[in-house]
C-alpha cells in the first residue's frame, strides 16, 4: 500500500509530552507517523507571507480520500487489536495522555497496536466515528470497534480497560 505523499513533510504525531521528559526511544514502539527519517526531520519555516501567523511547522497533506482509506487499511491489515486515540493539540487531557499512551503501548506491545489521530487534521475520520469529546479512545478488533471510552486516566486504569475489553468473547 503506497500512501502517495511524495513531497510529504509530515509532522510527527507522537510529540514529546510537555509534562515529562519522555524517552524518545520509546516512540519506536509507538505507531505514529512513521515515514523515513529524512522526511520526518524536514520542516518549512516562514515561507508564507501571511504576517500575522507565526508558522511552526507545515505539513503537506494528502487528499482526504487517502487519509481515510489509509486508516481503513491499517485497521484491516493489523494482526493485533488497535487502540486509536482521537486527540487535538490544544486539548489538555489529550496531552496528559501522551506519556501514558507511550507507556501502555510499550508494556502491551504484544497485545495491541496504538495509533493516534489528530482530529483537526483528519476531520473525516473523526466524523466517521462520531467523535465528540476529546480524548476519545476506540479499541478496534478485526477492523471493527469493540470498545469506546472518553477522558484521561492513569496508565493502570487504561491497561485494565483494554484487557477487560479484549477478554470479552466475540
Amino acid at each position, binding site marked *: 500500500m503506497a500512501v502517495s*505523499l511524495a513531497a510529504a513533510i509530515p509532522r510527527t504525531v507522537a510529540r514529546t509530552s510537555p509534562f515529562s521528559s519522555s524517552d524518545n526511544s520509546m516512540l519506536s514502539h509507538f505507531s505514529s507517523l512513521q515515514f523515513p527519517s529524512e522526511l520526518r526531520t524536514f520542516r518549512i519555516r516562514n515561507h508564507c507571507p501571511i504576517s500575522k501567523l507565526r508558522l511552526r511547522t507545515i505539513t503537506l497533506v*494528502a*487528499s482526504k480520500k487517502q487519509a481515510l482509506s489509509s*486508516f481503513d487499511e491499517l485497521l484491516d491489515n493489523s494482526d493485533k487489536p488497535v487502540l486509536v486515540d482521537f486527540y*487535538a493539540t*490544544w486539548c*489538555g487531557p489529550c496531552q496528559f495522555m501522551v506519556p501514558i499512551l507511550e507507556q501502555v503501548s510499550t508494556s502491551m506491545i504484544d497485545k495491541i*497496536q496504538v495509533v493516534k489521530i489528530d482530529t483537526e487534521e483528519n*476531520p473525516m475520520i473523526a466524523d466517521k466515528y462520531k467523535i465528540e469529546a476529546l*480524548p476519545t479512545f476506540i479499541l478496534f478488533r478485526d477492523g471493527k470497534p469493540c470498545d469506546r471510552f472518553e477522558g484521561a486516566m492513569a496508565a493502570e486504569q487504561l491497561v485494565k480497560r483494554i484487557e477487560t475489553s479484549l477478554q470479552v468473547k466475540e
Partner: protein
Amino acid sequence: MRALQASTSYSVGVGISSVALPPQPSPHRHVILAKVDPTDKSVEIMRKFSEQYARRSGTYFCVDKGVTSVVIKGLAEHKDTLGAPLCPCRHYDDKDTEAQQGFWNCPCVPMRERKECHCMLFLTPDNGFAGQEQTISSEEIRETTANL
C-alpha cells in the same frame, strides 16, 4: 486569516507500520495546513479569565498545571480564529456555527450548570486530579507548553 479552516485536504496523521513511497510526484493535489500558536494577548485574557472563574465557581486547577496551560492556550487559539473561546477538547462539524451558537463557548453550559469540565481546567475539590491552586502564571503557561 482563515487558512486554518481549509476543508478540502487533510494531513495523514495516521500511524502505519510500513510505507512504500512512490518515486514519482503524487498526482493528488496538496494543500498546506499550518499549525499556529495563539497570540500572547489572547493567552493573557484566557489566563485571567480562568483564574477569575475558578475562584468564582469554587473549582481548582489540575495538579498537573501543564493540562491547565494547554487548555488555556486552546481557548486562546479559538478566540483568535473564531472570535470566541470554543472548548478545545471537542471535535466539531462546523466550528464557526458552534462558536456563534455558544453552548461550547467557555464557560460551557455543562460547566455553568453542573460544574462539569471535561477539559480538566476547572476541577471540583472532590476530583482526583484537582490541586490546591486557583492561580497560574504566564511563566507556568510558557514553560509547560514549550514543547508544543
